[in-house]
């Protein structure tokens, strides 16, 4: 945590307390919300070690040790959802980072300010769509009978929502389409912050465009890229529930390549009423996620401390 902040006058501790109690009061409503919405569920994670009964609640339900975990890890699901979650996230990180950097460089180099603005607006726009709408849009392309892909592009229609092998490509593309703008905007603001003298010097030395990118832009982008990537790596155990639920239309035929931890937990909890298994998977996700966030943050702190979270 950085230490910048406004100085307020403080005498003794009690005097300060007397003077600044309204500040604590201001903090309180938000703190109560975080306590309820975030902290109570952390304690509620113990449900993973219980044989949950809705009547008895989390605290009243009987302990069952590691039974939920034994069940979870004895099914092939545990491996499938872990593999899918991690591989998708890695593919997402790779594609959005590479394409995001390329687009950012292209946009910043564009001569026309107006075109720059249009490109920036365009790449951001899909990011603001809800996953439900995203699902509709994808359906307009891939629907069996009415989809534009089957109707106009293919002679032999493909039942996309029952073809597991197609989904890694579809989801990576949809994620790129929706999400590339986020990183791209950050890269653009970093590139705009690069001292123009560096480019002028490079031009004087006769550097080609590619040499300028390689020797000035990319090195200057490096800290931002590393920070963003590590932050994403800290979240590889989590996925965009909407992407994997809405865009796939929750289609059972393609679970093998579209089931991730978040959709698995949802289905266990809401569709199959298997709270134990769901809770075990959720616990597994929370703990692995926590460890990775801490690790990623440690590394960011080593590289550039002002970008670290703590």
């Amino acid at each position, binding site marked *: *945590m950085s230490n*910048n*902040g*406004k*100085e307020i*006058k*403080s005498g003794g501790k009690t005097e*300060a307390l007397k003077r*600044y109690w*309204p*500040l604590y009061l*201001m*903090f309180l*409503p*938000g*703190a109560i*919300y*975080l306590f309820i*919405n*975030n*902290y*109570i*569920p*952390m304690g*509620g*994670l113990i*449900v993973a070690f219980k044989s949950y009964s809705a009547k008895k*609640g989390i605290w009243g339900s009987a302990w069952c040790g590691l039974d939920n975990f034994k069940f979870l890890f004895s099914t092939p699901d545990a491996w499938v959802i872990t593999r899918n979650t991690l591989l998708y996230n890695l593919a997402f990180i790779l594609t959005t980072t590479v394409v995001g950097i390329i687009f950012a460089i*292209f946009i910043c*180099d*564009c001569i026309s300010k107006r075109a720059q603005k249009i*490109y920036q*607006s*365009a*790449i951001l*726009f899909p990011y*603001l769509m*809800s996953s*439900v*709408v995203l699902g*509709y*849009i994808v359906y*307009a*392309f891939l629907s069996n009978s*009415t989809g*534009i892909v089957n109707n106009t592009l293919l002679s032999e229609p493909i039942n996309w929502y029952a073809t597991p092998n197609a989904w890694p490509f579809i989801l990576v593309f949809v994620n790129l389409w929706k999400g590339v703008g*986020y990183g791209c*905007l*950050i890269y653009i603001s970093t590139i705009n912050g690069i001292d123009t003298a560096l480019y002028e010097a490079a031009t004087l030395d006769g550097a080609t465009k590619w040499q300028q990118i390689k020797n000035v832009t990319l090195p200057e982008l490096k800290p931002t890229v590393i920070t963003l990537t590590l932050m994403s790596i800290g979240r590889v155990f989590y996925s965009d529930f*909407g992407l994997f639920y809405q865009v796939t*239309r929750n*289609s059972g035929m393609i679970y093998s390549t579209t089931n991730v931890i978040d959709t698995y937990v949802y289905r266990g*909890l*809401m569709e199959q009423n298997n709270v134990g298994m*769901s809770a075990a998977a*959720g616990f597994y996700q*929370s703990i692995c*996620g926590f460890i990775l966030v801490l690790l990623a943050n440690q590394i960011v702190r080593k590289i550039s401390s*002002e970008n670290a*979270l703590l």
Partner: protein
Amino acid sequence: MKKVDAYQIVTNIIMILWTIIIIAPFLLLFMSSITEENVLVANGYSFFPAKFSIASYAYIIRSGATILKSYAVSIGVTAVGTLVSVILSAMMAYPLSLRNLPGRRVLMFLVFFTMLFSGGIVPSYIMWSNTFHIKDTIFAQLLPNLLLSAWNVMMIRTYFSTSIPDALYEAAEIDGASQIRIFRIIALPLGKPILVTIGTFAGLGYWNDWTNGLYYISKNKDLYNVQNLLNQMVQNIQYLATSTSSNANAAAASLPATGIQMAIAFVAILPIMLIFPFFQKYYAKGIAVGAVKG
């Protein structure tokens, strides 16, 4: 000096292509919503429909009580949620921006820890439904997850402590202004850019949310927002596709025609399209600042 060379031409062509790739799907959605239903069923979705019809939109306005109600829920929840969210976040961020506040580090950690660790949906779901009984109430759309984010609080705090000159606070203190007054007359007005940014984040979060409805609204469908309504139609279609039972008839009966679904989806993104030019600047800035500085 930049000049129009091969590099400029190639990169602009690539960016124009990508812009088209982004716009085309929205265009397809819109064209589908104004295609005649029979043409839609026969030929599928198309950029160039054989026959136009505004029947879908007429239907929404004329007989769609459910649809209009869901818009009302979306608008109301977004307005209230955003307002409360911004106020709560600012109130939480202000004390954290004061360096000498006793216990500040502890308070900061309380907020910050929620960014690192999460209990996940299972305990949250059990708590909200069994302890607070928010199922099938309007609070289900407002309270879980969306009201306050530690990330937003941190962003406001950073803005308060770096972008508002110390001298202003000092002057106010010398004038004997109370802390709450300083917050009201200095921090809030000067923090307007960041508060608008956080407002766009929160507003978009509420407008686009469909998971709260998915988890917590099962019986009282009057509380569906637009996204929940769209989601329910998808579920009904999937149900029809996989089910042979007689319940399927009920699902089929409650299902609007394809064109109407696309029309609802289009109207769901319309508000975002309309205000996008105005909030884009704030939103984009928020992303750039938030991601790197936290």
